């Protein structure tokens, strides 16, 4: 697909190597926690001081944050809301990645709003979301400082149906594709894929590939004629890669996840979309043969 070596400093100067964790902020931590347990995640640790739980399966971490301060200012008490509030990127050196982003114009976050008391550098992304930069040196885990393991629970639950983080869907305003392409390109060396190239079951918008080619951002503009629709620029959906979509759908349906059946059989092998759950959250499966170590994409 691409003939440049993306592991060289020229292609990937920040050494981006996938997603370390995705954080959801929610007014309904129990219901949302139960939902991602249906997806195969296991609650493995609780925050030492805040209403925050760490879920894991395979090499995926999801932080569920019920701290009111983490919700967008537009959230209302009487309306259930669950939003993707942060994405943490694995990088070679977090401080270098952070300083690069700041030099390129990113806004530094105030660390007190972050879930981690450990000072994880981060910048503001789409909507109210945060982009964190995380490096891992040796056995040290960023979770050790802030989280206390839940007793009797395996800290390394296996991935269901080979699930791994594949990508994130972001809604953008009409005509703002070039602006976001330049934003992600200049801050983090993401590269736009040719128009019309898609993975999964939702062939809309445009795809940006991480320089490590292990995950993707899908930018989606409002549908035509959606003038009156509420359409904010924000992160809207996580996509999980699986080697066999129909098998993963069967496994997840067996656990109570409901998929929208609208694709022809051929598209169904490429991906599947869950229903929209309470709080406005949905998930997507995308065919991807990435190996368990997380290196390389399909």
């Amino acid at each position, binding site marked *: 697909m691409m003939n440049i070596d993306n592991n060289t400093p020229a292609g990937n100067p920040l050494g981006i190597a996938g997603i370390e964790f995705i954080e959801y902020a929610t007014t309904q931590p129990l219901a949302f926690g139960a939902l991602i347990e249906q997806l195969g995640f296991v609650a493995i640790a609780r925050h030492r001081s805040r209403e925050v739980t760490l879920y894991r399966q395979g090499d995926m971490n999801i932080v569920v944050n019920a701290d009111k301060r983490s919700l967008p200012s537009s959230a209302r008490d009487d309306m259930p809301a669950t939003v993707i509030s942060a994405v943490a990127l694995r990088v070679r050196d977090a401080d270098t990645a952070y300083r690069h982003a700041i030099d*390129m*114009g*990113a*806004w530094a976050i105030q660390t007190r709003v972050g879930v981690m008391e450990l000072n994880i550098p981060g910048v503001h*992304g789409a909507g109210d979301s945060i982009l964190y930069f995380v490096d891992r040196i040796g056995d040290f885990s960023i979770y050790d400082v802030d989280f206390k393991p839940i007793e009797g629970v395996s800290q390394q639950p296996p991935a269901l149906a080979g699930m791994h983080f594949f990508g994130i869907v972001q809604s953008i305003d009409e005509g703002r594709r*070039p*602006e976001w392409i*330049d934003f992600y390109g200049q*801050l983090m060396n993401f590269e736009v894929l040719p128009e019309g190239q898609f993975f999964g079951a939702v062939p809309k918008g445009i795809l940006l590939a991480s320089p490590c080619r292990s995950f993707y951002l899908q930018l989606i503009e409002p549908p035509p004629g959606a003038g009156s629709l509420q359409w904010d620029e924000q992160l809207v959906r996580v996509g999980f890669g699986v080697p066999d979509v129909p098998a993963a759908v069967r496994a997840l349906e067996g656990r109570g996840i409901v998929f929208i059946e609208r694709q022809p059989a051929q598209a169904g092998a490429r991906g599947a979309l869950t229903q929209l759950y309470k709080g406005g959250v949905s998930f997507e499966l995308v065919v991807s043969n990435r190996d368990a170590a997380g290196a390389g994409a399909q």
Partner: protein
Amino acid sequence: MNLANFGMDSVTLAGPLESKLRACRAAGFSQIMLWARDLVEHPAGPEEAVQLVRRSGLRVTGIQVMRDYEGLSGALHEYKLDIARHLLRLCKAVGARLLVVCSSTSAHAGGEPALVARDLAKLANSAVPLGVRIGYEALSWGRHVHAYEQAWEVVDLAAHANLGLVLDSFHMLAREADMEGLEEIPADKIALVQLSDFMWRDLGSAQERIETAGHLRVFPGEGSHSAELSGMLRQLDRGGYRGDYSLEVVNDDYLQLAPEIVCGRALSAAKWITDQVLRRSLQVRGYRGRTL
């Protein structure tokens, strides 16, 4: 081209924000360019001013103006970036999709195109998550960048979709700019066109330009450069520019007139502008008819 393409600039109108908004609405304009001070100096405070604007139903063309931003280093750069970001927040609050940045006049600023381009790209990145575009304008008395061609050079060099060029006819006419050069600039890189004229032919010194710019601009069609303005408008239209035209007419006399009267003059100017472009369109259609 119709009235929806044109907006008033609040600097042209006398009186408090409320009456400016009311006069624009009453005249049939659908947009207005605001200055940050329109909001922050409002007696009821900026939040109430923002609500006033939002309730008016007028679209905010953009927010003026970030000065002396680019080409600085160290603490000065950080300071100016911080100021620019406050203005970006104001843009977001009031729903303005454009922040106008005019070329630096600072003796502390460097003028290397690569340096200026880097600073503009940085601000363009800062503005992306807020949904605001950066428009860069050459002031005719700018220290390093004082012609639209120079401003275009650095905007092009910055290569960021969230950065565009703001063309201001006053500054272009004051420097006797070559309007033909506009054809080099892709229409989608022009963030805004600001229009005004003035009533004498020459503005030789920077001091004369500053004086006239700040006190005696007039509406298009009222000044001494109608032929040049007409050429500029036709060139922009030919190049495919379909964006906003803001009537930025800074004039001490207008500030002694009721805003309704000044809005009336603005409507005449909008008609004059449309006529210039329409004339060109008809000519082109006729030409095509003969050759095909």
